[in-house]
């Protein structure tokens, strides 16, 4: 790549992906948001406030940790973990919610809504809403409410109203549908904090920009600790916000490989998975054109993953572009393989990863041994596993 990467265009296109595909009723709100986003991202005072919050409230920078024991065990590339699990609320999600909530406040919005899958984004949203004194409603699929009850309780403690969505497949995509319906109904006073790099423009670019702090840190930390850039970046991809945050500052560094890990669920061949980049086709959902899991009639297919945060039939449009352009590579990891990654990191490094991040860890166990010991992998440890204790205990037949 000789020209500097400058996606998306001013209408939110990453090649043929992205864009704004919403009903006319939402259009004025999207335009208002885009104008505010463009304005404040160039506003020194706004950026200073954001930086201050990221440092003192979120706890940034998060460490880049050299996992030496695990590296030795796998016998290949040096493995570095970007410790987003150490952020306030336990995942990378708060980088984005802090940013969007500040934007909401500047725009004079008094009510925040969000969708959530695993509940990490919902918790991160409820957290910033509590801090800023904003009303908060979180939409969550009824199935996810059941399997992530700990996060539901956390959101309620923080003062948010959690709405269990009973329509469709009762998971993340249906929560998104319901949040969009709320937004269009309460458009004057409500700000919709989308948790991933999907949705209509400017969300994919805006969420990426708020998450890119983690990639910028990782780049500087790697240079400081190892004296060179990494050879490969690895991150799990549901909607793709933690991966985009890590990848984005490295896109122009052509020698740095970027690998996104999708959830293969029971296995791609079973059809029970959440891997649109590996096994889907382009289409339009939730405001943007991207790879989707849909059938021959264009109906969206139900997805499956052990991790609620990856259980989504679409993916951010920038990932679709990075895939087609060949700049990034997308692989997939089954539920069982992810559990292997979960146990490996827990036992080798004393760090319990979220089931989402465990997909990235599982891929590292495959990738690292194929690389040389003077090569470096940075893997995004996007969240901690506390929220998954019930799921894991249940799998092991233990009652808590």
């Amino acid at each position: 790549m000789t020209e500097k990467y400058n996606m998306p265009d001013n209408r939110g296109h990453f090649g043929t992906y992205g864009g704004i595909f919403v009903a006319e009723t939402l259009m004025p709100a999207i335009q208002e948001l885009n104008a505010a986003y463009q304005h404040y991202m160039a506003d020194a005072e706004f950026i200073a406030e954001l930086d201050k919050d990221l440092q003192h409230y979120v706890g940034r920078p998060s460490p880049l940790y050299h996992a030496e024991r695990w590296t030795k065990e796998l016998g290949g590339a040096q493995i570095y973990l970007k410790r987003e699990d150490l952020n306030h609320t336990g995942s990378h999600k708060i980088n984005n919610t802090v940013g969007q909530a500040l934007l909401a406040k500047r725009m004079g919005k008094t009510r925040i809504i969000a969708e959530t899958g695993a509940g990490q984004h919902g918790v991160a949203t409820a957290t910033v809403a509590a801090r800023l004194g904003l009303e908060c409603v979180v939409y969550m699929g009824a199935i996810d409410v059941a399997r992530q009850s700990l996060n539901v309780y956390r959101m309620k403690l923080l003062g948010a109203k959690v709405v269990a969505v009973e329509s469709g497949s009762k998971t993340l995509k249906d929560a998104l549908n319901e949040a969009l319906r709320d937004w269009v109904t309460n458009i004057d006073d409500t700000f919709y904090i989308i948790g991933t790099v999907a949705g209509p423009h400017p969300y994919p670019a805006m969420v990426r920009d708020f998450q890119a702090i983690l990639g910028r840190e990782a780049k500087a930390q790697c240079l400081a600790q190892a004296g060179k850039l990494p050879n490969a970046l690895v991150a799990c991809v549901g909607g793709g916000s933690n991966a985009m945050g890590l990848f984005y500052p490295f896109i122009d560094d052509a020698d740095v490989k970027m690998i996104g890990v999708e959830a293969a669920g029971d296995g791609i061949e079973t059809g029970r998975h959440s891997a649109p980049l590996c096994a889907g086709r382009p289409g339009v959902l939730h405001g943007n054109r991207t790879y989707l899991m849909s059938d021959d009639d264009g109906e969206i297919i139900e997805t499956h993953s052990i991790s609620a945060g990856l259980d989504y039939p679409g993916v951010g449009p920038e990932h679709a572009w990075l895939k087609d352009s060949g700049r990034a590579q997308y692989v997939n990891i089954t539920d069982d393989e992810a559990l292997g990654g979960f146990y490996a990191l827990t036992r080798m490094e004393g760090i319990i990863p979220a089931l989402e991040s465990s997909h990235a860890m599982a891929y590292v166990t495959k990738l690292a041994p194929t690389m040389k010991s003077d090569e470096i992998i940075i893997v995004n440890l996007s969240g901690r596993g506390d929220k998954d204790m019930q799921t894991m205990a249940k799998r092991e037949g233990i009652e808590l």
Partner: protein
Amino acid sequence: MSRLAGLFAELAQKNRKALIPFVTAGDPNPEFTVPLMHAMVGAGVDIIELGVPFSDPMADGPVIQRASERALAHHQSLRTTLAIATEFRKTNSHTPIVIMGYLNPVEVMGYEKFADAVQAAGVDGVLTVDLPPEEAEECTALLKARGVDPIFLLAPNSSAERVQKMDAIGAGYLYYVSLKGVTGAGHLNAAEVETKLAEIRTNTKLPIAVGFGVKDAETAKIIGNLGDGVVVGSALIKEIEANLHNPAQAKQAIIELLTAMRQAMDN
């Protein structure tokens, strides 16, 4: 001149307003829709909007969402919706049909194949809820080349600039959504609709159909006095939902409601 343009010209001469029912194709079962369409024509409707069932109807309220789910349970789709239109056209060549749905089924079929299929089915207009004019150029050009009108939504908060955009790219009529929110929501504010329509008309000569919030003869009459057409959807689908075990009863209730609306609008 398309069937829709011809119809609105004719109605304007007679000083009559279009009554436009919306039903989801294949709800509550695939055999229900074609006979219902013919019966609705008998009750005096002017245009029929056929909803294409979609798994993720983001702009619709619970009533139309459930209609989609019932149709999908019978594997209804864009293709079967067009088959319903084809079947209807065998014995009715004059009542315009508009299909209304979401973009993904169209994307998966492919724009050109879609435009061909729509034309072959005798469909007159296409309203794609999540395809705003900025992204619609390719699809609308293919439709227009086949004599099919692309129809666009207007909202209470649409700017004058956006109305001009719809006017330039749209055809047949514009569909004014009289409420903020999803289908089937809230109450109608007639004064607000009147003011907004007057404003919109300074930027377009296209006929304007008004929907969202029309639930009975009275609201149909009020809206009929303001717009060129009255769209009624959720109120009809509620009758289907209330009579799931007796579709014949649902059909009768829909026809009675439409007949009452027609009479109220014409008096």
